[in-house]
């Protein structure tokens, strides 16, 4: 991929505003995802990063702002246009979200069966290739409930890339997995980017996996982007919240309250 193409933005978000009822989740979010790069969206629990992801893939409509995916505004798209666009997008959900009534092979084959007119034998071969890529060859006939958490995640990756998407989204890929499996998934993401030249967006709160896979980092805090840039800059960024995140320091109000409670207890006795 040449330098000019690399500068192109796969996703652009302008002034995105999202609220649930009276609660503002995202206020004025601006960010870009460049083609062929891995962008990591960082942030603490409840900062709106999964919500942001859900909006980028069009599962919800925002209250304001624009989301451009491949230079087309998805907030004004109808269902048919969205469906066509989503064929070029893969999503790995936090809970894997495999269809429990289908085998692993059928899960991976489902998008191919529904969206393409390929021969069944071709679909079988493609399914096997995708499962090979994530290290699950031979597991076609297993049901999702028969697999471990890490294997389910891998199967979810296989399903997400079954249509050879241009953009791959991963919501907390290492959530609830042990460090070895989590590291394996980081390598898988790295490999997919290298081998398939995909644009990848990962939502996570794990610093280690961020340093391993990220080309760019976007950090969200209280519904705003507080940092955007390469990981080297992130490490030395002076923003207090970023420093707190990097140095893994807890918020202080908790301690104060516990202290006050303890004092109240001791003064009473």
């Amino acid at each position, binding site marked *: 991929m040449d330098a000019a193409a690399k500068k192109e933005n796969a996703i652009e978000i302008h002034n995105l505003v999202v609220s649930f009822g009276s609660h503002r989740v995202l206020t004025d979010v601006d960010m870009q995802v460049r083609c062929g790069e891995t962008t990591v969206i960082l942030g603490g629990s409840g900062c709106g990063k999964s919500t942001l992801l859900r909006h980028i*893939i069009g599962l919800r409509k925002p209250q304001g702002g624009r989301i451009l995916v491949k230079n087309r505004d998805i907030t004004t798209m109808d269902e048919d246009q969205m*469906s066509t666009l989503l064929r070029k997008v893969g*999503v790995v959900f936090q*809970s894997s*979200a*495999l269809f*429990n*009534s289908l085998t692993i092979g059928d899960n991976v084959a489902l998008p191919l069966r529904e*969206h393409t007119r390929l021969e069944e034998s071709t679909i079988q071969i493609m399914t096997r290739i995708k499962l090979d890529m994530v290290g699950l060859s031979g597991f076609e006939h297993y049901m999702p409930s028969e697999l471990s958490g890490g294997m389910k995640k891998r199967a979810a990756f296989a399903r997400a890339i079954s249509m050879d998407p241009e953009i791959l989204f991963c919501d907390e890929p290492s959530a609830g997995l042990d460090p070895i499996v989590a590291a394996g998934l980081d390598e898988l993401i790295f490999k997919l980017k290298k081998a398939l030249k995909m644009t990848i967006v990962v939502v996570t709160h794990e610093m280690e996996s961020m340093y391993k896979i990220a080309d760019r980092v976007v950090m969200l805090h209280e519904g705003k982007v507080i940092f955007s840039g390469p990981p080297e800059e992130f490490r030395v960024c002076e923003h207090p919240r970023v420093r707190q995140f990097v140095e893994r320091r807890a918020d202080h109000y908790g301690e104060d309250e516990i202290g006050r409670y303890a004092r109240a207890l001791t003064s009473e006795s």
Partner: protein
Amino acid sequence: MDDTDSKRQGLAALFFGSIGRRAAGFVEQLAFLYRLILDSLYWTFIAPLRGKGLRVGSSFDEMVKIGVNAIPIVVLISFSIGMILAMQSAYQLEQFGATIFTADLVAVAHTRELGPLMTAIIIAGRSGSGIAAEIGTMKVGEEIEALQSMGFNPVKFLVVPKLLALAIMGPCLTVIGDLVGIGGGVFMAVFSLDLGFERYVTRTIYALIFKDLVTGLIKSLVFALLVGITGCYMGFTVKGGAEGVGRNTTMSVVVSIFLIILADAFFTALFYYLW
């Protein structure tokens, strides 16, 4: 004084606030139900004509699950109901020496009322709850969102095959229920009421008119669709994990049966006064 005043104001705000929130929630639910029904109609009748396809394969799968697999229980219950009906009517008709009219009563009551009703209740218990549990579990496990993220419409994928299967299998099961119910009556007539097989069957055929059968089948179609929409709605509105799935599954059965009875009253009145 000020303190109690502000407290009273706080209470009033709490009271009216909760009413307002409930009303808003109710309107929201109605809007969702309306959209679900519209979408189902669109993906059943309009989308296939526009070349967006109908999932025929999974509709047949659902027909087996909802229809064929329910035959044993429908047969068992309808046969029992037919026998019970025969005994109860014979008990009254004996007093007038008109036991043979048991045939009329069983046939008409079963085709017009009990066949569709009992079948619908079986479908609500078997399939309505199953639909709510299936869709609810998929909702909880992000599977619905996964479907959407692949560019699939959940209504087309999950709801339409089930509703089609119900619309076809509801009346089919009712026909089976009607036949077996009358069979239950025949069984009682022959073995306990000494009415004689041929006499009873002749009387049954004489008593039944086309209208009885048709009104029963129209009802059964409506009941089946009510069960389907209720099950899907309850599935899509699951909140809060496995517990929520359980709660909405139970609700789907309760609400389905309630709606079936309401619709039954409505249609019976309609057919009674207008046809």
